[in-house]
């Protein structure tokens, strides 16, 4: 019934499993992608890149990662900030130890290192769940940040304790360091996100995704149909951390360029990404993007309105903005607990029936 209104019939199962089963939606998606890849780079400036686009892309990557773990596999994590830090420091060590390495490899390998750390901190999930697991991941968060502060080897014994990304490139174009062009970092992050969002979609639509969701929905029944809880949970931790690690690597190397761990990857990061996932929609790839967009764009928008348009002093605006974002999160959670992805789904259903809503 769903598709009949669109005059779009499914004749085989392959067509039925497509990511965008409806033609118009597919067109919309590719048009949007063409715009992001081929139009935006020509108009991008430093403000848009730093204030909007880079954070959007990088948080979307982190949200995708957390959504795999929490939304698909049902394992709550408050360690996202810590895992982003692992990605960032892995990137830093790789960049400084192997100056010839291209930036794409650096990001992927940083993700791989974080995946390993994720498995380690995922081990408690085999014994504990829910609230207790959340506390265990919180401990991971504090431990990791403490570790990167404590051992000078991680920041190459620099006096400030900060890490700073040297210039690295891909295809001869610099994407880290002080002299990068906004379009270059933007396209770099966009390409990685594009590829790995597609991979996330693939992983979640098949056997692996179903084994995660089975664990999430009812772990006892999952085991009885043959899901190994060990494999399902640890693979979710590994893959989730892989994404979060890549996000951390790009957050440090391509976006900020120089960071101090407590400031950049504190507990607020963990909560921010968790809010993105919840607001966007647990267990939804699209939701990860919507949630990241909401929480990245809203503060920018509010600030522009309050400071630029109403002429409020910046500190007042900053406080007010935090309050507004907090209030909106609460209102949102009460109004639509299944997140923005669900709103989008409902809107589509309405549109499909339009103009006869019966």
């Amino acid at each position, binding site marked *: 019934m*769903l598709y009949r209104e669109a005059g779009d019939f499914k004749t085989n*199962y*392959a067509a039925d*499993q497509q990511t965008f089963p409806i033609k118009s939606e597919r067109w919309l998606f590719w048009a949007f992608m063409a715009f992001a890849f081929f139009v935006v780079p020509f108009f991008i400036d430093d403000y848009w890149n730093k204030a909007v686009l880079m954070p959007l892309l990088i948080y979307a990557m982190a949200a995708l990662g957390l959504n795999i773990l929490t939304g698909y596999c049902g394992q709550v994590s408050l360690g996202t900030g810590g895992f982003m830090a692992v990605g960032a420091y892995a990137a830093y060590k790789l960049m400084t130890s192997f100056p010839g390495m291209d930036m794409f490899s650096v990001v992927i390998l940083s993700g791989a290192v974080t995946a390993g750390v994720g498995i380690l901190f995922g081990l408690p999930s085999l014994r504990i769940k829910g609230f207790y697991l959340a506390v265990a991941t919180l401990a991971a968060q504090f431990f990791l940040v403490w570790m990167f502060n404590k051992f000078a080897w991680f920041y190459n014994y620099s006096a400030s304790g900060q890490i700073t990304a040297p210039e690295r490139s891909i295809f001869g174009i610099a994407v880290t360091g002080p002299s990068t062009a906004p379009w270059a970092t933007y396209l770099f992050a966009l390409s990685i996100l594009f590829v790995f969002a597609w*991979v996330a979609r*693939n*992983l979640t*639509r*098949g*056997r*692996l995704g*179903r*084994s995660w*969701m*089975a664990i*999430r*929905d*009812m772990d*006892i*029944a*999952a*085991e*009885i*149909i*043959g*899901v*190994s*809880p060990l494999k399902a949970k640890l*693979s979710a931790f590994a893959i989730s951390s892989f994404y979060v690690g890549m996000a951390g690597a790009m957050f440090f190397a391509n976006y900020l360029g120089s960071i101090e761990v407590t400031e950049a990857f504190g507990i607020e990061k963990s909560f921010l990404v968790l809010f993105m996932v919840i607001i966007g929609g647990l*267990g939804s790839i699209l939701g990860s993007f919507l949630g990241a967009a909401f929480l990245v764009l809203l503060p920018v928008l509010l600030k522009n309105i309050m400071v630029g348009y109403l002429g409020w002093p910046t500190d007042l605006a900053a406080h007010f903005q935090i309050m507004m974002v907090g209030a909106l999160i609460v209102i949102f959670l009460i109004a639509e607990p299944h997140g923005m992805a669900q709103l989008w789904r409902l809107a589509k259903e309405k549109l499909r029936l339009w103009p006869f809503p019966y």
Partner: protein
Amino acid sequence: MNVQFSSSKISTDDGLSPGETILHVDNISLSFGGVKAIQDVSFDIKKGEVRAIIGPNGAGKTSMLNVINGFYHPQQGTITYRGEERRKMRTHIAAKQGIARTFQNIALFTGMSTLDNIMAGRITLQKRNLIWHALWHGPAQREELEHRAAVEQIIDFLELEHIRKTPVGRLPYGLKKRVELGRALAAEPALLLLDEPMAGMNLEEKEDMSRFILDVNNQFGTTIALIEHDMGVVMDLSDRVMVLDYGRKIGDGTPDEVRNNQNVIDAYLGVPHDE
């Protein structure tokens, strides 16, 4: 409707011919603290039969199924499944060896659609690894489509077409039970354990469910162990019946034999038993 599973599918080719013993339970005892749920029970299940386990509430029927698929570990006794003796077992390994089950209290994946729930039943049959899945197009998708085709046959068979994409949390009770049967069937089990598949159903739903169970047994040759309280259903469906009472076996035989067994009659009429 006569559904044919493509020859390689659903066949439970384990080298056993009908009538051979597929499962042997020997002197099983299981207790929880002071509660003796099962006391020294032995019985067997033969390939191709419908084997009923009956008994009053709390008799230990569910516990017996839990022992068979490795969810509970008995303190004493052994289980021989397809010639392999074991005492302890992980449930997901029992699943890989062809034991599937449904639950007394439905245990579906509520966040997933009917289709995904039944597809999940085939997890042990899907082999492609992470890398293929990440790439999707090619082997992973091909495998997925093959399994989808098999699942669609089960959907046809159980008449679930209209709720294929519905999240199971929204389904009425009777349909949930049917989806759960579908998920168990999807695994193409050698031994199917059904824990009160008709509990709480109305007459029509019971008739449908009985028909499905018989068809599964006849068409696919699946061996079934069935717990059921409705005596009419039990007597119609099963080849042999085992009766439990207070954790002990008090009767075992064909439906007629069991019906005329004095111990069984006493147990059901609530004649006090001497301990």
